[in-house]
């Protein structure tokens, strides 16, 4: 089972886990990326995400396939990113992987979130309490500072 989605409302984490559950899976690992109220000491009031949706979905599907080839025993992969306004403390991204034993699921979840942050065309804008705002750049971005 592979499931990819981009949504503009609350991500249903339990639904992601349900999608990955199978009788063959003894492990379901889940990562939630949650919006923070601060960055480098600055107070963050709100965050907004936008994406290049078709390409973002395509890259997320590729990440699912890569997880399947790296960990062939994996039984389910679910990658969901939220866009638009994401209130502080809510999940902006959910990665769920199921596998017969825990190690594959845990490692694949880490790979999934690392690759999302590195290359899926999604951007985050932070709005600060001093009225300023900025588009963020992930330090993990695969082409950051390499051009």
């Amino acid at each position, binding site marked *: 089972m592979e499931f990819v989605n981009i949504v503009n409302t609350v991500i249903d984490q339990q639904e992601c886990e349900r999608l990955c559950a199978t009788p063959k899976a003894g492990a379901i690992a889940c990562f939630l990326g949650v919006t923070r109220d601060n960055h480098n000491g600055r107070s963050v009031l709100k965050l907004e995400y936008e994406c290049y949706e078709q390409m973002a979905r395509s890259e997320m599907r590729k990440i699912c396939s890569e997880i399947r080839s790296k960990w062939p025993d994996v039984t389910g992969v679910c990658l969901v990113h939220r866009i638009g306004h994401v209130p502080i403390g809510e999940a902006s991204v959910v990665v769920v992987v199921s596998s017969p034993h825990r190690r594959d699921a845990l490692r694949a979840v880490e790979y999934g979130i690392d690759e999302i942050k590195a290359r899926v065309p999604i951007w985050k804008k932070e709005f600060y309490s001093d009225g300023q705002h900025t*588009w963020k750049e992930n330090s993990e971005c695969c082409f950051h500072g390499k051009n």
Partner: protein
Amino acid sequence: MKIKFLFFAASRDLTNTSEAVIEIPVGTTSHTVKGILLEKYPKLSILLPNCVVAVNLEYAEKERLLEDKDEVAIIPPVSGG
């Protein structure tokens, strides 16, 4: 030939548009097209060196030749997650 360009996030803010159709010469690559964009959108100069180009939904190698009707997206450093 005519190419459709898409701008996102910081690149959209600097160009003031999310898409544009621009005439470019045959032989333009996904790298040399940046020069053409800078002429049209000088404000992009602060960001474009850090951007990569996606052609038809795929990250493009620098030497990728652009073709008529390609969809070319200017991708600023990503910040998903």
